[in-house]
């Protein structure tokens, strides 16, 4: 499990070809501003890898370094086993990558079709009829066949995004890099794009996706790295992160009782095998907020609700509310970044980056 952040030096126990992208201490400074700080990422073949973080956390900068658009200040990056610092190896690796970087950019005075033919030239394809066929297929795949001959400047934002995706898929890449792919789309467009990402994954294409939308990442990604202010806060399987969020949640009418319950459960944890721990947590948005504003999170299997009740009753404590909590990245993220009113410590499966100051933890 911890192999997920095995540094490149030890190589972990993965085969080299299973790692599509590995960054080691990847750092980017723009002048004095540290945009990305010592990032260690591993994207494996078949992952739908989510780079998650608020605006300005360094996601786009990271993707641009992967794509050879921005030169790292320090650290190294290996794509398909090639050294990104070597021009030939970088170019050979980029042949296997398709990308949409932030807002799609094309020549406004050319049609969608002509733009894709240009992309084909940039990707080293000839201008044979086979390439033209590929262009038309890509246009069809994103549903732009009807508008293929309209000038790009006349496209709606959604059509521009789709043309970007068509460009990314043009060369039948093994890795698709998408930066905020649903930005500016209406809800239906978002659903479409997410379905498309899942289709890519089913075809065995590795996807590296940056997004600030927690639920989007939760819906489509298999693995996630959480970034904030250039730092990697955690990296792991989405299912593991969610599993750590599952537990029981109790509310008390009296903050003093809450503290007593916390102490009682923490002391019981040592002698009760199924009870893994207890901590204070913030209610999720929209939920009932008890006096004092905090809830008690009990890390225990969901079917032990009665057991928790019994333990509390032994101490003469009675909860005003007891609820099952399903996992959500949002909870996890708030806990990790300390943005919640009070945060539970990061679950054990989280793998904080050694180089980052831990911002989460109990307040």
């Amino acid at each position, binding site marked *: 499990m911890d192999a997920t952040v095995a540094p490149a030096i030890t190589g972990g126990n993965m085969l080299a070809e299973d790692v599509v992208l590995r960054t080691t201490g990847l750092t980017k400074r723009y002048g004095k501003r540290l945009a990305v700080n010592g990032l260690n990422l591993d994207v494996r073949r078949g992952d739908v890898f989510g780079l998650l973080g608020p605006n300005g956390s360094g996601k786009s900068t990271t993707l641009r370094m992967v794509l050879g658009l*921005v030169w790292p200040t320090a650290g190294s990056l290996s794509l398909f086993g090639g050294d990104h610092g070597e021009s030939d190896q970088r170019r050979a690796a980029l042949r*296997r990558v398709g990308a949409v970087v932030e807002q799609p*950019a094309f020549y406004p005075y050319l049609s969608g079709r002509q733009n894709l033919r*240009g992309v084909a030239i*940039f990707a080293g394809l000839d201008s044979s009829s086979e390439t033209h066929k590929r262009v038309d297929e890509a246009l069809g795949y994103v549903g732009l066949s009807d508008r293929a001959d309209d000038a790009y400047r006349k496209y709606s934002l959604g059509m521009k995004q789709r043309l970007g995706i068509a460009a990314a898929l043009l060369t039948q890449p093994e890795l698709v890099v998408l930066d905020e792919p649903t930005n500016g789309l209406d809800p239906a467009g978002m659903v479409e794009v997410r379905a498309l990402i899942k289709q890519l994954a*089913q075809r065995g294409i590795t996807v590296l996706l940056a997004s600030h939308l927690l639920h989007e990442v939760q819906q489509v990604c298999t693995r996630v790295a959480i970034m904030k202010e250039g730092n990697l806060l955690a990296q792991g399987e989405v299912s593991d992160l969610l599993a750590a969020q599952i537990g029981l949640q109790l509310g008390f009418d009296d903050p003093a009782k809450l503290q007593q319950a916390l102490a009682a459960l923490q002391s019981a944890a040592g002698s009760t095998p199924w009870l893994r721990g207890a901590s204070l947590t913030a209610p999720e948005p929209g939920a009932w907020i008890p006096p004092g504003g905090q809830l008690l999170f009990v890390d225990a299997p969901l079917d032990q609700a009665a057991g928790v009740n019994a333990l509390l009753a032994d101490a003469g404590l009675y909860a005003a509310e007891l609820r099952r909590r399903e996992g959500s990245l949002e909870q996890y993220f708030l806990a990790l970044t300390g943005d919640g009113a009070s945060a539970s410590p990061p679950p054990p499966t989280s793998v904080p980056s050694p180089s980052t100051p831990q911002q989460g933890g109990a307040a």
Partner: protein
Amino acid sequence: MNATAPQASAPASVTALSAGTWVIEVMRLTRWELYLAWRRVMTKVLIILLVISYAIVVGFISFAIVQITNQPVQSGQSFQCPPDATGCVTPSPQEIQQMQQDQAKQRAASLAQFSDPVTFPTSLGFAATFARIVGLLLICILAGALIGSEYGYSTQRLAFSRDTSRLQMLVAQTFALAVISMILVAGMLVLATLVGLTVGPALGVSVSAPSFGGWMEIVKFFFAFSFSLFAYTLVALVAATLGKSTVAGVGLALGWIVLELIVGGVLTGIGLILENVGQNRDLGHTLQHIPDWFLGNNVGALLGHAGQYPIALAPDPGPDLTFARSLIVSLIYCAIFFGGSYLLLSRRDVTE
């Protein structure tokens, strides 16, 4: 893993790219850049401007020719004194004949001055003089827009996030600018040939076909003329790359042209004054020769060397700017512009 997953492949280094592929890719990119230039509305507007302004100049010249040819030769009568004039000596018939001959010579000289620009093959030389002012401004605008708009449209990342290298892109852009310069010059020369074969003869000037040597001069002239424009498109290239915008590319290139003209004129003027009226003759001489290091003077000298004999399409560049020296100086300028663009582009982060 997924059954349809692509085969795990060997490290990227195995698929290193061959030199042949590199060149073929650059050729494709060059064609693409030319296509981009052609598809821009601006290109068509600039071509129309060039043709119209040339037509206007040719029109003025034709008008002047017509004026000169229609001037009546003074009759013998007009040389006679008015009846009541005192101190007036009526010229003898021989004197009148002499005056009429002088007048005809003068008229022929001024006619030649105006008819050369519209008579083949000297019309080619005039077309160059014209295009080195108007065409130069327009081609620099086009070059600045072509390179600079890549930043405005953020389209650079399309190429650089693929396997197109920055050097390849720059070489392709440079080739494209060279081709555009040659197309413009070829177009100008064709226009000038048409004018020279129609307008001149229509106004009564006789046209003779150039000798073989004349044709060779025209070919050399074509290349020197193209180069004189191309060198300035590289100013637009480095300026647009430096300023990451069309405005920078166009503005700095036009600024360069104007600055050369002004500074060159001022230095030559002050130098002449110092040399002739002041005591400081050496300084005057030096000042006058500073513009010999300017790009415009050197490409102009190359044009002069290419267009000397037998037609004399361009003015004599004088003894100081030899062919070899002008060529070397011009090439150094081009190398600096290209190298500077490469240094800027290769180190830069593409954050547009």
